[in-house]
């Protein structure tokens, strides 16, 4: 894992001290809310429906046990005993008090964490593959490349006031677990015939009001040119991105308006000017960072065969573990989606338990997934039963990864000022209804957003649900056919919306039609939808 150097720590400590002074001045009424609001937002603090909300950055979703225990401490000391893991690998706390925030941020800084650039029109937390350094299909660990971007983008003066927020994802595997086609910039590590690592660069993806898939603007970028090329992309966006209309300010609109080829041409022109300025760090700097991410030394002779005679345990192993690149090991996904519970929420006690398990059995690493689950990336298979038992005792052993009850949901109108409708209750009802049949349904990704901003990734759902306001009442649109994976596609609205009970019934009808139409148990819902189109589902729902 990356460890802060003296520069990182000094930056974070200075920001805490600065914000402590700003909060004190606000509480003494020496600065107005109008002046203070952008300052608190720069530190990840929003005012939501019930209280202040703090969003803490978890760079590329990687934590160690010390950091997860601190997140548990914050939940206990400053919140109401829980936190909410988000769809951008961060964590949010819902019951913050402004007057306690400086102490909280100081606690965070003590474990090399912070909350800046989790709001505002800047480069946000860099997200990545939760299976990094463990996935069997990985070309290289994407996190050193994400960390280099983090350092480059942290408090970058030129890119602190972009036309709109900016999200970057980096992955190093053929399987896309980071949704790179749905980010402002998606980076994919690739390998040429000589075994060299390079970067494929995608630009202009995103969800929200105008969902678009990203375009490849470079199939191969030498690693040595990484930062200067990123600088060129951001400069073209900063120069031409629209600032007159918030709904047209994301880079995807610019790329779409110019056309990907013209956008790429402008980036290349800008890059020709930027590259000679010497912005790219020497190779030794990436090597220095990469040294922090050396894969753990794992025993490749660890036993592969384990006792699976307990059917419940066997089911969990089959569904919630993935092959590790080292024999005798597994990647464990801990579901935060027990049916009926709030997707992504974890109590302080649960966080402490997972930290203990990571320290004892997983090389002291935890990952946060954009699907709002947690991962232990490096686990000996002969420790799986012990881990499962501990998780089961804490309500964390639900075997539902990528199944119907593993639903992504934004906080929705239960917490969020931007939301038009509640999303969590829909997720809870659907999870309870669908859990009994989810083993038969196979991979089925349901994603729910409480407003058009799409934090619940509804456009990337095999089944997506979008909450809207219809004359003061909550209403839910049903979308089908999306994917955030390597086969990315955007879900399309099926027809008129429904009330809370109606949307649950509609999803059940869609699933019933899928079961009738699929060619066999191996054909996923998404595959069936792509094969037969929307009409049979429309007929099932609307008659």
């Amino acid at each position: 894992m990356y460890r802060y150097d003296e520069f990182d720590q000094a930056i974070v400590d200075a920001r805490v001290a600065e914000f402590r002074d700003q909060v004190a001045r606000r509480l003494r009424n020496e600065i107005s809310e109008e002046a203070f609001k952008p300052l608190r937002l720069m530190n990840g603090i929003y005012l939501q429906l019930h209280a202040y909300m703090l969003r803490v950055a978890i760079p590329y979703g990687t934590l160690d046990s010390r950091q997860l225990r601190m997140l548990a401490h914050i939940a206990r000391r400053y919140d109401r005993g829980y936190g909410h893991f988000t769809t951008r690998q961060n964590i949010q706390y819902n019951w913050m008090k402004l007057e306690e925030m400086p102490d909280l941020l100081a606690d965070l800084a003590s474990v090399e964490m912070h909350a800046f650039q989790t709001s505002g029109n800047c480069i946000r937390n860099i997200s990545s593959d939760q299976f990094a350094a463990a996935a069997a299909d990985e070309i290289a660990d994407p996190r050193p490349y994400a960390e280099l971007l983090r350092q480059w983008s942290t408090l970058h003066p030129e890119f602190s006031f972009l036309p709109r927020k900016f999200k970057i994802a980096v992955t190093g595997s053929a399987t896309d677990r980071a949704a790179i086609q749905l980010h402002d910039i998606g980076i994919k590590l690739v390998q040429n015939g000589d075994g060299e690592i390079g970067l494929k660069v995608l630009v202009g993806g995103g969800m929200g009001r105008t969902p678009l898939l990203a375009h490849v603007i470079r199939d191969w970028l030498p690693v040595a040119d990484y930062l200067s090329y990123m600088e060129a992309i951001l400069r073209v966006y900063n120069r031409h991105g629209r600032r007159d209309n918030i709904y047209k300010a994301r880079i995807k609109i610019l790329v779409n308006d110019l056309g990907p080829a013209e956008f790429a041409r402008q980036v290349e022109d800008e890059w020709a000017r930027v590259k000679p300025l010497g912005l790219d760090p020497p190779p030794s700097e990436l090597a220095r960072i990469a040294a922090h991410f050396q894969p753990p030394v794992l025993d490749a002779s660890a036993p592969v065969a384990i006792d699976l005679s307990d059917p419940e345990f066997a089911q969990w192993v089959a569904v919630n573990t993935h092959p590790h690149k080292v024999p005798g090991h597994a990647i464990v996904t801990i579901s935060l989606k027990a049916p009926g519970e709030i997707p992504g929420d974890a109590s302080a006690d649960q966080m402490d338990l997972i930290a203990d398990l990571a320290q004892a059995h997983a090389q002291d690493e935890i990952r946060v997934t954009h699907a709002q689950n947690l991962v232990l990336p490096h686990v000996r298979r002969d420790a799986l039963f012990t881990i499962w038992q501990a998780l089961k005792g804490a309500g964390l052993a639900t075997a539902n990864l990528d199944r119907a009850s593993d639903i992504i949901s934004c906080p929705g109108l239960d917490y969020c000022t931007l939301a038009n409708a509640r999303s969590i209750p829909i997720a809870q009802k659907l999870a309870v209804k669908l859990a009994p049949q989810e083993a038969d349904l196979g991979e089925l990704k349901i994603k729910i957003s409480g407003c058009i901003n799409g934090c619940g990734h509804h456009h990337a759902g095999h089944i997506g649900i979008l909450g809207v306001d219809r004359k003061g009442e909550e209403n839910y649109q049903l979308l089908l056919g999306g994917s955030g994976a390597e086969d990315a596609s955007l879900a399309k609205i099926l027809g008129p919306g429904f009330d809370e009970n109606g949307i649950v019934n509609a999803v059940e009808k869609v699933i019933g039609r899928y079961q009738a139409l699929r060619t066999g148990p191996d054909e996923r819902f998404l595959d069936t939808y792509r094969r037969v189109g929307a009409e049979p589902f429309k007929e099932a729902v609307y008659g």
Partner: protein
Amino acid sequence: MPRLLTGNRVETGDVIWWTGTGWSLHLKDAVAVDADGEALIARFAPQERINDLALIDADATDAGWRPRTTRERVRAVGPSVRPDFALPSIPVESI
């Protein structure tokens, strides 16, 4: 229709309601401000102690005030998915 004055306390972010003489965490303590609402906002806004001052529509029911929109009912009670945090404002199940 009755209108209530609400906002969020600067120090804590708590949702609060104007009672006629002060501020309360509980919707049941609110008073209708009706035509005086804008004047009250003009009075309190410059003091900078309450964020997001707003007038909301509510119905007077036998059980007390019931805000017209789901959003304001959720604000008044707490998250509908965490009844353990519900304030004694209106029944959480009626959100």
